[in-house]
């Protein structure tokens, strides 16, 4: 295991929703460029773990640090900025804005960070081409297949050069073959971009694309450090 400062590190994460304990003391480390699959059945707490790692939810106790910097003390606005600048997201479906063509969907996060529209659009075009979507820049999400839409989402997540990409069931709405293609692209392009990757999935085949996998059950990591 990498002994340098982990890119993303969580210690003793506890998160409760009312009387339900979603996370009961979870430790996770993620090295730069490493991919980690978080597995577990429905309701096991894996999505809550992703939300805590990404700064969407604040844990009731425990810490999360990005490159050694604790993110728990940041305000809501600061965490939002952190997600915009340093994280990328790929959800199961629905994160693409339906009224924007593919190229503008990809360019939007860069524009939100202040890149001029022309430059952001050029960059987005290059990302789409590198993911095999040349010629589809003008298509809207409704005119793309599920696999194509997820590739657009991958480009959208990577355009800002994030430190970590979080993917929540990225193949959940796809057939097996398309899901295989999307995972290949997601893991390869993320690694090539130097970003770390956290994939939440209940599918062992999807998890098999990652460097490591952990299994969350009843809010605890049950089978840590399962090598690929």
């Amino acid at each position, binding site marked *: 295991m990498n002994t340098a400062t982990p890119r993303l590190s969580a210690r003793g994460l506890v998160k409760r929703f009312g009387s339900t304990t979603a996370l009961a003391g979870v430790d996770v480390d993620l090295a730069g460029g490493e991919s980690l699959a978080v597995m577990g059945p429905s309701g096991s707490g894996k999505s809550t773990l992703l939300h805590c790692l990404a700064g969407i939810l604040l844990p009731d106790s425990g810490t999360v640090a990005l490159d050694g910097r604790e993110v728990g003390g940041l305000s809501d*606005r600061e965490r*939002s*900025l952190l997600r915009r600048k340093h994280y990328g997201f790929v959800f199961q479906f629905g994160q693409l804005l339906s009224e*924007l063509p593919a190229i503008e969907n990809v360019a939007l996060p860069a*524009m939100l960070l202040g890149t001029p*529209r022309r430059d952001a659009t050029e960059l987005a075009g290059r990302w789409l081409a590198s993911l095999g979507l040349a010629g589809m820049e003008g298509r809207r999400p409704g005119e793309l297949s599920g696999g194509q839409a997820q590739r657009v989402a991958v480009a959208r997540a990577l355009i800002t050069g994030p430190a970590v990409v979080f993917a929540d069931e990225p193949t959940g709405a796809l057939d097996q073959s398309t899901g295989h293609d999307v995972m290949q692209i997601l893991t390869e392009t993320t690694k090539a971009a130097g970003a770390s990757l956290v994939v939440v999935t209940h599918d062992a085949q999807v998890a098999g694309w990652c460097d490591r996998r952990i299994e969350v059950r009843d809010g605890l990591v049950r089978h840590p450090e399962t090598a690929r």
Partner: protein
Amino acid sequence: MNTVLALAPRLQRAGGRDARITTSLAITAFAVTTGLTLSVVGGLLGFTARAEVPVPEGQGDDASVYVILAWIAVVLLVVPLITLAGAAARLGVARRDARLATLRLLGATPREVVGLTVTETAWQGLVGAFLGVLLYVVLLPLCALLPFQGTTFTVGELWVGWEGLAIALVGVPALAALSGAVSLRRVTVSPLGVARRETPKKMTWLRVVVAVVGIGTFMVVSSAAGQLGAAAGAALLGAMAVGFMTLNAVGPWVLGLVGKAQLRRASTPARLLAARRLLDDPKAAWRVVGGLGLAGFVAGALSILPTIVAVDTSQDPQGAILMDDLVTGAMVTLVVAFLLAAVSAGIAQAASVLDRRREIALQSLAGTPAELHDSVRRRTVLVPLLFVAVGSAVTALVMFYPLLGVQSMLSPQGPLMLVGFLAGGCALVFAATETSRPLLRSVLADTVVRAD
């Protein structure tokens, strides 16, 4: 009862908070539509009844003029009223379509899906109509305070009768059901089709031709009104209705052009998104601001009133009363038009937030600032709003030019009145759209993004 139709109440309850908000908004819209329609019809009936009373010897017969003017008010308000009712029937259409498409996938037939929608919207229409009747009854004594023909109305004069109420209670749910069924065409074609948004079909320039013909018809008829004799009033009224309706045809097309121009210049994410949203569905944008566009048309038409009123009526007391009443009637019509526009805009904005709930929440999770959504929401309304209000007022001035001549346009009070009306109307509509802000905040606060 059919198994699928029997599901209607359960599906409604299962929709949770969003479904309750959508239902409340739809019912509010139907109630406002019913209440104001009954009030306007009551006014028309009041003037008609007065016109049927024999005129004493030596007095001029202005009563028939009042009936024509009341009909003009009805024509001016009918489109905003229909727009609001249509908006109510389309509320939350994205969520409802997704839910019904799932039912189609599970094996429900197109007929059952239509039945379910018709049941849902008809029920909302019925509750709305009932509340609208109550609103009408509450407004009755207030409307009766308005002075016309030298005296106020009695409540009895403005009463539409039990048959009028019955027609509302049957007609509103029926129209709601029809509108709901029409809005469902896409679901019944394909259960998969509804979740997919594709590049919108372009609206053709034929809409402009329709508008030019409509407005031209009014201008020709109005310039020849003198030769039409007794038929002049009816011809003018019909031509005005045609001209007015054409605004509804050309409005979305013009908004599409505005969207294209905005898109070319968009340099920030908010401008880009607002332009794309406008371009994506100009008809939906028109539904939000169209009410004010139509009110702007009314304001433009009414801005010539000061000139008419300025005509020396000191020798003609009856003429003076008529002119005063003309101004009162115009103001009432305009206030109702602005209220309808504000309610339409507020409801459409809230529905838009609910329809986009999932994508707004996911964008927020990915770090998109809340200010962007606010900025896009405002821009989506404000830019078309200003454009439509001013454009409609100018159209009205052009349309009425042959009827009243250049002198009517030269009075300084007219333009001042117009600017005042438009500024007040825009502020009212903008305030109404801001009521969706707390709803947007609650969507952004939701970190658990549920599937639709």
